[in-house]
């Protein structure tokens, strides 16, 4: 059965996020002085079935770790529906 994996990839807290900084500065200059910080990440939707590493959950985990994120600087979360 085909399901959808929704994967969110964010830079780790301690890693500089230039996109977030740029958006933050634009929001501030647009008058949103209540905005304190912005982080920009990636959101990925995958239609998939159970695959070669067993369950769909395991495979989504493997894809996220090996391809969609770089574990040195990023972390990910997965939701399957």
């Amino acid at each position, binding site marked *: 059965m085909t399901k959808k994996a929704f994967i969110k990839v964010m830079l780790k807290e301690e*890693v500089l996020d*230039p996109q977030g900084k740029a958006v933050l500065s634009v929001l501030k200059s647009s008058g949103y002085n209540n905005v304190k910080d912005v982080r920009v990440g990636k959101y990925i939707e995958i239609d998939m079935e159970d695959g070669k590493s067993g369950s769909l959950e395991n495979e989504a985990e493997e894809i996220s770790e090996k391809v969609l994120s*770089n574990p040195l600087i990023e972390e990910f979360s997965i939701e399957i529906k």
Partner: protein
Amino acid sequence: MNNKNIKAGITVFPGSNCDADVYRVLNAVFGVNASFIWHKDKIKDLKKYDFIVIPGGFSYGDYLRSGALAARSPIMELVKDYAVKGGITLGICNGFQILLEAGLLGGVMLANDSLKFECKDVYLKTLNTDTPFTCAVKKNSVLKMPIAHHDGNYFATGSIIGGLNKKNGIIFKYCDEKGQITAGSNPNGSLHNIAGISNETGNVMGLMPHPERSSEKILGSEDGGWIFKSMIKYVKEK
């Protein structure tokens, strides 16, 4: 051995844009027999090549992460096999990012700490001249080459840096004109001013600046030529 008997392969991905520069320098300046390898070329292995260059550019539009998609393309399986067997492999700029993503070198490139695309000449101190990429360079030489990148801020964990130090794997550091390794001469925030590193066995190097854009007098510096001269020397003496 004549230079024209040296075979060099230049990998080309969608979005590579320094491939023709590397081709020109190797063929027209140094007389090497260099040819392109398209990422989808149906070839079995790369063993006919004396060395491989992964040129700079924006492979796959830098989608996902710089170098991430190219690192997982079919030709990179052959490059991995070639490199693991000791093949001389140089990655320049995006080529460096691809080698990191492919796991052939340790660490990762973050966005420049200036948050800007940095395009200018920099100075590099040569820390290890006992490599296929620097064997024609005098130790501690300062080389002038241009950089052109957004994600060149090298970062690695303590254990990766420890491993690099143990094997003299830090080949180039950003420095000033006089060779002083200072914070002011670091163009992108790279950890320890790192500009170029090699793998444990020394046959794979990633270099952020562009030697192919500084191998002819008319381009303002010929210092980058020392990288290619070294590789040619190494192949001849092997």
